[in-house]
C-alpha cells in the first residue's frame, strides 16, 4: 500500500486530532484569575486550626451560599494580621469598603438547579472532600476556567476533556449527581433539583 497516495488524508487526521485533542480543549476555556488569592492550607493549618464549616455555611442561607460573605473574613481580618499582598488587598479593597468579594465559584450550578448543602452534609453525611476534592488544602486558588460556549465552570465537566480519568470528585453534571443518588438509593425526581 502506497501511503504517499493517502498523505493528505493522514495529514487531515493528524491536524484534526491535534485540533480536537489539544487546541480545542485549550481554547474552549478562558482562564480568569480569582479577584483575590486565598490559602485554604494556612487557615486549616495548625496555626489557625479552622475547619470547613467555620467559614462555609451548610444551612439554608443565601441562594448559592456556602461561599462566606466578606463579613466572615472581617471577623479575623478587620485589620491586616500578616503582610501578604492578598491580605492587604482584602482589608483595603473589601473589608474596609464593605464590598463583597466577587468570587468565581468553581462548582457553580446553573440557575435552574436548586442544591442544598445541608441535605448532603447533614442528611447523607457526605464529607466535603467527596465532592470538592483536596480543595480545602489548597495553598492558592487556581484560575477559574470558564467554558466560552456554555459559560459553565470547567469543574462541572471535569478536568479531562473526555471525562475519562476524572477524579471521583470531579464533574458535577446532572448525570453525576443522579448516579450518586442512585448508588445511595435516593429517588430522582425532576422537582427534587429543578424547583
Amino acid at each position: 500500500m502506497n501511503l504517499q497516495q493517502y498523505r493528505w488524508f493522514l495529514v487531515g487526521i493528524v491536524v484534526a486530532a491535534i485540533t480536537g485533542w489539544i487546541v480545542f480543549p485549550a481554547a474552549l476555556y478562558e482562564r480568569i484569575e480569582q479577584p483575590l488569592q486565598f490559602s485554604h492550607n494556612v487557615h486549616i493549618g495548625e496555626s489557625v486550626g479552622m475547619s470547613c464549616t467555620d467559614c462555609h455555611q451548610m444551612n439554608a442561607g443565601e441562594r448559592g451560599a456556602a461561599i462566606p460573605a466578606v463579613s466572615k473574613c472581617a471577623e479575623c481580618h478587620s485589620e491586616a494580621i500578616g503582610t501578604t499582598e492578598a491580605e492587604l488587598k482584602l482589608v483595603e479593597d473589601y473589608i474596609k469598603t464593605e464590598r463583597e468579594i466577587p468570587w468565581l465559584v468553581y462548582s457553580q450550578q446553573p440557575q435552574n438547579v436548586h442544591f442544598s448543602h445541608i441535605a448532603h452534609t447533614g442528611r447523607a453525611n457526605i464529607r466535603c472532600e467527596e465532592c470538592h476534592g483536596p480543595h480545602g488544602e489548597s495553598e492558592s486558588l487556581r484560575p477559574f476556567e470558564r467554558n466560552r460556549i456554555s459559560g459553565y465552570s470547567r469543574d462541572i465537566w471535569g478536568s479531562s476533556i473526555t471525562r475519562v480519568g476524572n477524579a471521583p470528585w470531579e464533574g458535577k453534571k446532572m448525570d453525576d449527581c443522579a448516579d450518586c443518588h442512585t448508588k445511595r438509593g435516593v429517588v430522582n425526581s425532576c422537582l427534587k433539583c429543578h424547583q
Partner: protein
Amino acid sequence: MNHRISRRDLLQFAGGSALGLLLSPLPWKLLDDSAIWTQNWPWNAEPLRGPVSNLLTTCSLCPSGCGLRFRCVSGNPISTHGIPEHPASHGTLCPAGLLAHHLRYHPQRIGRPVRLAAGAPFVEATPLTTEEAFNAIGERLRSSKSTVVLDARPDRAASEVLKQLARTLANATYVPEHTERDRTIRAMASAFDQQVEISFDLSSVRTILSVRAPLIDGWHSPDRAAAIFDRRAGTGSPLFIIHVDSTPSRTAEVADEWVKVHPGSEMVFVLGIIGALLDEGLTAPETRQRARDFAELRSALAPVSREWISAQCGMTTDKLHVIARRLATQGPSLALADGQPDPNGRSSALHAAVACLNLLTGSYRHRAPVRAHRGSNTEAAPSLDAITDGSVDVFLADESISGSTSTEHLLAQKGSRNCLLISLSPFVVPHAAFEQIVLPAPAFGEMLTDVPGVSDDGRETLSVTIPAFRSQEGTFNTVDLCAALLRAVAGTADASPSTEELIKDRIASVLKTGKGHVFKSSDRTIVPIGSLSSSEELWTELTAGGAWSGDQPTRKPTGSFRLMRIARPALELCEQERRDSRSRFTHDEQSAPPAPVRIVDPILQGTTVISPLISKLREESGLRPFHPEAFDQASSSPVSVKPSKA
C-alpha cells in the same frame, strides 16, 4: 516534484479531518455545550438571589386544606413543599399545590375585567373598564328574573357576604357548589328520615367501586390518594379497586379491575349491581330492617329487565353478579361516583343510584366507611340540581378561590338562552354556552381566605391561607365584589366587614366552643384548643400554617331511611329510556359485550416508573422509606422540618 495541491488532495484532507475530528472529543463536547448554550438565552429570567426563608400557610386550591410551606428567596416564594406533620395532609401536595406559586403567572390570568362571547376562546376576550363592566352587570341584574349566586367554595367566612348579596338582590338565590363527593354524600343523607351528616372514611374500606370517580387525582385530598398508593403497594390493609369508566383514566390504570361500560350508561350499570344484590339476597340485614321501603324498591326494580341493563351498559349479567357479590362479601365496601361532565343530564340520578347501593351494602354500619351521625337542624341551601332547567338569566359565580367552577355542564343545563355568566376569577375560563363578564380576582397566594372542611371522621376543620404575594391592583375579593355589585344595582352599599374581620369572627366562634385541637406549625405539636388563651392567639397559629380540627361527632343512631327517596329518580330515568325503546349505543347485538379488563399493576411490579410529580408527593410526605433518620436544619433556619419516619 509537483507540489500543487489538487482537488483530490483537498478531499483527502477533508475526509481525514472529518475522521480525525470524529475520533476526538471536539464534536461531542461541542454538542453538549451548544445544547447548554441554547438553554441560557440572555432574555431568560434569572432566579432571585437573597436570604432564604420559609412561609408556612395552607393551600386553598381545594377544600382539603393541605399544609404548605413556601420556600422564599428575598421574600418571594420560589417553591412549595408539604408539611410532614400537618394533620390534613401529612406532607403531601397534589400537582396543583406543588406548582401553586406559578398560578399567578398563568397565561389566562387577567388584571382587568373582560367580556367574552359564548364559545369564544380566551384570546378573544375584550377588556373593559371597571365602570363599563359594572354598568353592564348592573343593568342585567336589575332586569334579571332569576339570578343564581353560585359559591364555588361555600362555607367560607366570606360566603356569608354572598348569602347576604343574594338576599338583597331581586330574584336571586344563593347556591353553593358541591363537589362530586358532596353530591353522593347529600344523596345518601337525603335517604334518612332524620337529619344526618355523613362523611366517607376510605381508610376502613376493603373494596371500592369507583364509578368514574378520579380516586387518585382530585376526588379526595392528595394525602388520601397517597394512602391509596401505599395500600396498593402493600402498606396497610388490602384494598381492591373496581373502576367503572368508558375510557382508560388514570384511576383505571391503578385499579385492580377496569370495567369498561358504554359511555353514559354508568347509572344503568349501578342499577344492575343493585338488581344483582336484590336477586341474590346479598343486601345487608340491617338495611332490610331499617329501610322502610325495601319491598317497594324490590318491586320497582323487578320489571327492569336484567338483559336490557346488560345490553345498555355492555356488561354480562354474570359480571354484574360477580361485582355485586364482591361488594357484599369482601367488605367493608364503598361505592363512589363522579357525574361530571354530564351531557345526558344523568349525574344526579347517578349519585342517587350510588347512594342507594351504599345503603344496600351496609356501608354505613359500625366501623364502616360511611360515617353517619345525627346532624344539626339547619336548613340546607338549594343545590344546582334543584334549579329548573333553562330558567337562570344571570349566574354570578364566585370562583375567586378555585379559579373556575366544576359544574360547567350543570350551568349550561340551567341557564336560559341569553344567560350571562358573571365570574369572579383570576383567570378567563371560556364557557361554551354563555356570554361572560369576568372580573379579576387575586390569584392563589395573593389573598387571605379561610379553608373550612370536614375530615373523614366527620370533624370540622379550619385553617387560613395568608397572602404570600402582593395582589395586583384592580382585583376584587368576594367582599369587594359584593359591595361593588350592590352599588352598581342599588346605588348604595352598607359597609361590610373586611375578609380579615369575618375570618377573625369565625375564629372567635371556634375558640368559644372550646372543642377540638390545634396543630401548631411552629413546633409541630397538637394542643387542645383550651390551652390557647385568646382568639388572637388562635389567629396567630392559623395564619402561621396551623389548623384546627373539632371533636369527632358522637355517633348516635340515625334511625330509618327510605331507599325509594333516592332511587326513584334513577328508576324513572331508566323507565323513560325503556319506554322510548332507544338504544343509544350502536353495538353488534350478536357479539358478546366487552369483558372487563384486568390491569396488571405495572407500578407495583416495578416495570413502570411513576410520574416524578407523584414521586415528589411521596418524597415530601415523609412516607417513603428512603429517609433513614430525621434531621434538623441548622438553628439559623427559621423552620425546623422533620420528615416523619415511614
